[in-house]
C-alpha cells in the first residue's frame, strides 16, 4: 500500500515539476493550474476507488487525472496541443479526460461538474450498478449556487457520490475568510443532510481510509452521499508555473507547515531506499517517455478543426 501511494504521489509531483520546467519554453500553450502540494487528496481518494468508478473534476486537473489512472502520455500530448492528446489537442490542460479510466472530464467554469457528477450518480443508481462517483472541487465552488443545489439533490435521492472539497484556503487570491461568514464547509454539507468530515492535516492515509469506508457504504447502498473537506495547500501560483508569495495575499510562513508535512517526502522516508529508488527510476523513465511522446507527436491537421462538433 505505502509503495503504491508513494508511486502515485511521486509521479504526480514529478510530472508537474516537469511541466513547470518545460513551461517557459512556450511549448505548452495552455493555462496550467498545478496541484503541487495538493497531491495527497487525489491520491488518497483515488487509491480507494475501483477502475469502474468515475471522477469529475476542475481545471486543476492533472492530479486527479493521473491518480485515477489517466494516461500520462496522452496528458502530456494534450498539454502540448498534439493530435495524440487525450482530447486530440481540443481540450488542453483545463479539460483532461480519459473515460476509459473513469476520468469524466473537467470544467474551467467553477462548480459546474458537481452537478454533472450527481447526474452520473443518479444514472448509476437507476442502472443498479455498484460503482460510484467522486466529485472533486475547490473551496471556491462552495460559494456557488450549483454546489448547494447539487448537494440537496444528491442527499434527497441518496446518490452514490463522494464529494471531495479540496480546501486550499483560496479562490485565486481571495481567502475563504473573505468569502464566507462561516468557514465551516462541512456544516454546509450537513445542512443538506449529508454526512461530512474534515481531514485537517492532508494525511493521505486518513483520506484514503475515509473514502474507503464511504465507498463501501455506497456500494452496499446502506447510506450516502458522503462529503469530505480535505484541507490542503497549493504551493505554486493559481495558474502558471511559478511561486507567488511575492504577491502579498499569503505568506511563505503560512506555507511552511504544509511544506514540512509534505506527503511526498513523508512517504519517501517510509520506504526502503532500494525499493524507493526503483520506483523513482521507473517513474522518471515514464515521464521522460511521455515528454518525448508529446514532443514527437504531430499537431492535429487543419481538418480536425471541424470534427467532433456533433456526431458524424
Amino acid at each position: 500500500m505505502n509503495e503504491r501511494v508513494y508511486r502515485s504521489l511521486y509521479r504526480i509531483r514529478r510530472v508537474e515539476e516537469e511541466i513547470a520546467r518545460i513551461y517557459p519554453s512556450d511549448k505548452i500553450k495552455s493555462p496550467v493550474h498545478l496541484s503541487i502540494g495538493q497531491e495527497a487528496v487525489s491520491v488518497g481518494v483515488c487509491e480507494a476507488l475501483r477502475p469502474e468508478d468515475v471522477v469529475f473534476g476542475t481545471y486543476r486537473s492533472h492530479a486527479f487525472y493521473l491518480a485515477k489512472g489517466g494516461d500520462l502520455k496522452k496528458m502530456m500530448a494534450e498539454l502540448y496541443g498534439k493530435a495524440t492528446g487525450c482530447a486530440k489537442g481540443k481540450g488542453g490542460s483545463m479539460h483532461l479526460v480519459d473515460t476509459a479510466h473513469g476520468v469524466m472530464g473537467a470544467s474551467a467554469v467553477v462548480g459546474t461538474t458537481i452537478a454533472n457528477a450527481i447526474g452520473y450518480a443518479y444514472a448509476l443508481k437507476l442502472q443498479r450498478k455498484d460503482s460510484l462517483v467522486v466529485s472533486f472541487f475547490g473551496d471556491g465552488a462552495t460559494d456557488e449556487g450549483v454546489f448547494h443545489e447539487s448537494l440537496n439533490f444528491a442527499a434527497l435521492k441518496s446518490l452514490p457520490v463522494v464529494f471531495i472539497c479540496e480546501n486550499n484556503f483560496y479562490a485565486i487570491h481571495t481567502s475563504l475568510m473573505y468569502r464566507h461568514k462561516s468557514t465551516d464547509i462541512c456544516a454546509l454539507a450537513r445542512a443538506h443532510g449529508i454526512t461530512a468530515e474534515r481531514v485537517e492535516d492532508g494525511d493521505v492515509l486518513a483520506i484514503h481510509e475515509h473514502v474507503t469506508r464511504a465507498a463501501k457504504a455506497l456500494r452496499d447502498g446502506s447510506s450516502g452521499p458522503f462529503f469530505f473537506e480535505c484541507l490542503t495547500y497549493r504551493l505554486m501560483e493559481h495558474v502558471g508555473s511559478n511561486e507567488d508569495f511575492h504577491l502579498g495575499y499569503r505568506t511563505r510562513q503560512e506555507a511552511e507547515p504544509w511544506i514540512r508535512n509534505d506527503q511526498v517526502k513523508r512517504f519517501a522516508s517510509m520506504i526502503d531506499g532500494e525499493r524507493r529508488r526503483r520506483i523513482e527510476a521507473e517513474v522518471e523513465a515514464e515521464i521522460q517517455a511521455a515528454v518525448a511522446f508529446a514532443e514527437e507527436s504531430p499537431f492535429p491537421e487543419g481538418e480536425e478543426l471541424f470534427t467532433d462538433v456533433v456526431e458524424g
Partner: protein
Amino acid sequence: MERVLSYIDAIREATDQEMQRDLSVVVFGLDVDDPKAIQGTTRGLMEKYGRERVFGTPLSEDAMTGAAVGMALAGLRPIHIHIRMDFLMLAMNQLVNVAAKSRYMYGGQVRIPIVVRSMIGKSWGQGAQHSQGLYSFFMHVPGLKVVAPATPYDAKGCLIHAIRDNDPVMYIEHRILHFQKGPVPESSYTMSPGKARVTVKGRDVTLVGISYMHSECLRACRYLESIGIQAEVIDPIWLSPLDIDTIAASVHKTGRLCIVDNGWTTCGASAEIAALVTERLQGVKDVRVRRMGFAPVTCPPTPLLEDLYYPNGRTIASAAHDLVTGTHNGWLPDERLDLQEIEFRGPF
C-alpha cells in the same frame, strides 16, 4: 502632445472619475480587490473609495447579478465585473429575465442602471470555456444595451456613458485589446449609444470589425492597400443600439460589405448587420455581402487549430479581395512582420 493611455488605464480612469463624481457608483465582482485587480482596471479604487464601494465577492455570479439589480432599484449604480464573458452564462436569468425586463414589465416605474463588464479571452489555450464572444445573446434581448469598445479612447467614453445610462449596459472587453495604447483625454467625456465610427475611409469595400476584430480589419486594410484596394473600416462600437445608418451609408458607397465578428456568425452580430443593411439597401443598391467570425466549432486550444479558428488580417483581406474582384482565386497576402501588431491610432 496627446496623452496616451492603455485600454486598461482608460477603464480605470473612467471608473475613478465616475466614482468621484457620483457617490452612488459601486464596483464589485470576483477578484476586483485582489493583487491583480482585474488586469489593473480596478487598481487603487478600493484604497481610494473604501471597501463598501469597491469589493470582491464570493463566486456567486447568479446571486451577485440579482444583487446588482437590487442595488440599482435602491438607487445605486453598480458596476459588476467578470474576468471572462463565459461566466456570464451563470448570470443569464437575472440579466435576461430581470434586469432587461424590469423597466417595461413594471410600466416604467423602475430603472436598472447597472453596468456589467466582461472580457473575452484569446490565445494561450484559453480553449472552450475562456474564449467565447457571446454578446449577440444580449443583443437579442430588448432592454439591454451592448457596447464593445475597441480603443482606449472609446473604452473610457463608453464606460462613462454606460455608468450614467439608466438602463443595463453590457460592456464587452477583450483581453488582447487591454494591451492597446492610444490617445485618451484626461477630462471626462461620454460616447453615446448607437454611434459607430468610420476609422479608415475607402471606396472599394466596407469592413465592419467588432471588438478585437476591428484591429484585424485595420491590418486587412493595409494588406489590401498593397494591391490597390481601398477598404473603408467601420467600428460599430455599440452593438445595441446599432448605428446602421453609418454602415449602410458606407455600403451604399462601396457596394461591398464584409462583417468580421469576434464571435460565431450564426444568429450573431454579423447576421444582424447583414440583414439590416440588406433591408435598407435592397432595391437601392446592388450589394455583395460576406460574413466572417469564429469557425463554427468550439474554440480549440492547440495553436494551429486556434489560428484557423479566428479570422485575421490576411484572411479578411483575402475575403475582401474576392468581394471586390468578384473572384475566388485564392489570393492570400504573405504575412508582413510590420502588420503583426498594430497599435491603433484613430483619426478622432
